[in-house]
């Protein structure tokens, strides 16, 4: 069995939530695995990160350099490639860093690469058997990755139930940083604008996807949201088409929302979108496609054309509300 490493992300002295997920994934490859953490960074915050990782990892490989103060994937890749032994399996979170970092790393260390892994079914012979999805989550696949020269495996955040090792007293082992070639240089992070409506504070969200069809139709959703006493949010394609502002986007590259009720209208339900939905809301899905992945996570599903159904619902809600007012 190859040695298993987990590249651990951290920010502001705090270990990323995915660390325990990578640990769990290592145990799915090999139930007896004692995975080694690999971390890069700089400064006192970073030292604290290394110490806290000793709580669950038996070994923490620490690569420190001022050049690694910000996790620039181009530099982190050089650092990790220089220390990980040939033939290892390296686990990485499939987030914006993992997208940047891992495919190139697999080439540099001559290993196999698989992205966006949802589950691991174990090792047979020279291969690890993995579960992935294609077509925006409409279809699943089993994939075999040859690990005879090692593998870089990118795991979907949230897909693995977090686990921690009982390896109290793990040790930090400092590994040398290489001489870096900095062909890409981090300048700054620009924080998202907040926009006119703060969707993170709304109790009811009428969220629209590609199915809204055109910009003029956004008004149909706004009328429903107004009747329900909520606001309109959206998925990525609506922002890409410039039909709504980026500040209204729910998802891993948008806002994280925690409404009581989430009405997903014409939203297929990609994991990037669902990653922005927290607090276990009551999810109502309206979609023309009965096979849309959103129906697998929704509480209530309606197979319908959102453009036809929303006005009907808006009318009924308005009737209901005026009846309530009448009773008072």
């Amino acid at each position, binding site marked *: 069995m190859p040695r298993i490493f987990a590249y651990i992300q951290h920010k502001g002295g705090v270990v990323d939530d995915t660390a325990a997920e990578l640990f769990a994934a290592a145990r799915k490859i090999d139930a007896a695995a004692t995975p080694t953490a690999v971390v890069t960074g700089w400064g006192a915050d970073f030292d604290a990160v290394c110490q806290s990782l000793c709580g669950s990892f038996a070994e923490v490989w620490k690569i420190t350099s001022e050049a690694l103060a910000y996790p620039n994937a181009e530099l982190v890749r050089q650092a990790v490639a220089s220390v990980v032994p040939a033939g290892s399996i390296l686990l990485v979170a499939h987030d*914006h860093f993992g997208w940047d970092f891992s495919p190139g790393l697999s080439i540099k260390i001559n290993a196999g690469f698989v992205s966006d892994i949802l589950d691991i079914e174990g090792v047979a012979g020279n291969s690890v058997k993995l579960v992935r999805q294609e077509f925006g989550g409409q*279809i699943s696949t*089993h994939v075999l990755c040859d690990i005879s020269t090692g593998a870089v495996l990118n795991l979907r955040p949230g897909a693995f139930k977090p686990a921690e090792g009982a390896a109290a007293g793990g040790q930090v082992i400092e590994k040398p940083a290489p001489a870096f070639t900095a062909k890409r240089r981090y300048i700054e992070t620009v924080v998202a604008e907040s926009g006119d409506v703060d969707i993170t504070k709304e109790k009811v969200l009428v969220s629209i996807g590609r199915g809204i069809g055109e910009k003029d139709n956004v008004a149909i959703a706004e009328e429903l949201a107004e009747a329900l006493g909520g606001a309109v949010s959206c998925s990525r394609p609506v922002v890409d088409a410039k039909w709504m502002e980026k500040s209204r986007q729910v998802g891993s*590259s948008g806002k994280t929302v925690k409404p009581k009720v989430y009405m997903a209208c014409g939203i297929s339900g990609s994991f990037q979108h669902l990653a922005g939905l927290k607090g276990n809301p009551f999810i109502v899905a309206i979609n023309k496609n009965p096979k849309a992945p959103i129906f697998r996570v929704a509480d209530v599903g309606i197979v319908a054309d959102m453009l036809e159904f929303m006005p009907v619902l808006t009318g009924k809600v308005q009737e209901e509300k005026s009846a309530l007012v009448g009773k008072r």
Partner: protein
Amino acid sequence: MEILVCAKRVPDTSENEIQLNDAGNDIERDDLVYSINEPDNYAVEEALQMVERAGGTVTVATVGGEDDEEILRREMAMGAKNGVMISDEAFEGSDGKGIATILKAYVAKNHYDLILTGVQAEDGGAQVGGMLAAMLDYPFASLVTSIEVLDGGKLKISREIEGGNKEINEIDLPCVLSIQTGINEPRYVGMRGIRQVASVPIPTFGADDLGVDMAAVGAAGNKVKRVDYFVPPAGKGAEMLEGAPEEIADKLIVLLKAKGGLN
């Protein structure tokens, strides 16, 4: 600036319901509508806008077969000067690394300042651009949402990171960037435009022309193999509301009231 965009023809998920075939070894492909992978189309638009500002040419290449020529024509109708078909029986069934190996061989025989790919394709691999960059020893950035050309052979780019925030980087040319959707508004392509480029020759290059490392390509060279397709588990499964729209709305309102969805 000489720009290469690597593009792929894929089943269009906005036009198709993706289903398993009867044997369970593939998706049902008979009635699928294919189009250019959406992020690749954004990449071509970005390349065209860069060339309009700074001069140069845009070349669109695909690794595929006869059926894939339609996306090259489409992108040429958008304004790409050259289309390139990279095709060989030996390439069939290549995994991501195999495709990157083939593209690397093509790039090594040509000169490009900038190589763009879409951020990911229908399989969500998000891998060929990063692998190609590593093979060429070029710098790479993924999830790119804006590009500005700076003096001195470099670009200022922004990347999409968590929470709608952006990471700003400077990157040296030549480089490989994977382009996120929404970076621009791709221009419309009409049938007339496609007819106008219908007779423009598209050169085809095979394994021998490019000197491809055959050990890493084709199904036999794969490190990663798809075993099967299957229907994802149902999850908790939604309670489906059925009936006429008015009936469904009535049922839904009862539920919404109970869950705090009527304020």
